[in-house]
């Protein structure tokens, strides 16, 4: 179900990039849809972004984040993310 939501979001993003969205951008989106996992906003529960987290050169890189987020520790080994912008945060 989150993939459907993601596909709908991609329509808007493609418009934002213009009709000639780069091929590499499309490739990245397909890879994220196939291999990525959804991260949900801790406030509204909707998918904030789809990502592939990778440890690279001593840093945790979260490939696929495409929205402004606040991140905090949820437990000793888990992070949770929240939308920064209230109009993206689909609170009930």
């Amino acid at each position, binding site marked *: 179900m989150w993939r459907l939501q993601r596909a709908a979001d991609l329509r808007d993003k493609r418009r*934002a990039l213009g009709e000639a969205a780069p091929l590499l951008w499309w490739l990245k989106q397909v890879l994220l849809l196939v291999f990525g996992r959804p991260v949900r906003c801790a406030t509204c529960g909707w998918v904030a972004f789809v990502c592939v987290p990778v440890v690279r050169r001593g840093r945790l890189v979260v490939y696929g984040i495409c929205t*402004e987020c*606040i*991140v905090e520790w949820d437990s000793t080994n888990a992070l949770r993310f929240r939308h920064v912008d*209230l*109009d993206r945060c689909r*609170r009930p």
Partner: protein
Amino acid sequence: MRCASGTLISIAVGGLNVALLTALITHLPAEAVEANLRHLERVAPGARVLVCHGGRREDFEQITTPDKLFVEDPDLRAPPITIQSYNEILRRIWEQGVRDEPAIEAVYLLEYDQVVLRSDYERIVLNILTLTGADFLGKNCVDRTRTNWVHYLRFRHDPGLLDFLAKISVRDDPELMFGCLGTGLLMRRAVVSALATMEHYRPSYNELYLPTVVHHLGFRVDDVSRVTDLYAHVRWIPPYRLEEALRLQAAGAVFVHPFKDWRALPVLEAAALASTGGGLNDDLVQRS
């Protein structure tokens, strides 16, 4: 609103007489600026508008309204999303449009591509000021400290900016940084005065710099999106097409941004004049 003699009169809002100055920020050719002004005049007759032109001098000279100022600041002309600054614009707005007009209580910064769709936008905007009690309001105007917002990441370690904030801040945490969209900024007279009369740090980027400095000066900064859906159709990208704007206008939207097709403004004007509009407070969808 102006009475027949041209004297500025106030709009009664909630029992208080408050006047709003709309500052139209543009760099477009004269023809486009005139189209913007015509649009505002027809959709919201009586609105007090001051054109702040940051484009070519020859275009500025051709603009017919006397309520205009030309901004020479090179920071305003910086490439998009770099170090564009509104500091000089605010200083000029204060000197030319607000300082000697005590009736003006608030200034509304409107970029050229934020299009007004309803005649009662001034009343709506001023009601939000009253509702929130804030001194500075913007879209998604929130604390961006320790987020991945691109402009916070650009400036969070800027030693000059951090020193500057430490000097001016009356807050407990002088490193807090706020951010908002750079159009649709509403600020009280006192905020404009403070920003216009202080020495600023540069280089800076207005979407981060303005709400951050206002917060650290001790004013109350708030997010329009926290209390209403007024800016539901005010976004960064992509631009709205005409058919989208017409549909939103028919549904009661007050603003759309960005809308780049200034040649299509007469279509929106006609639709605005044909519509009945709606009452304001009932329109605002209050967020819990």
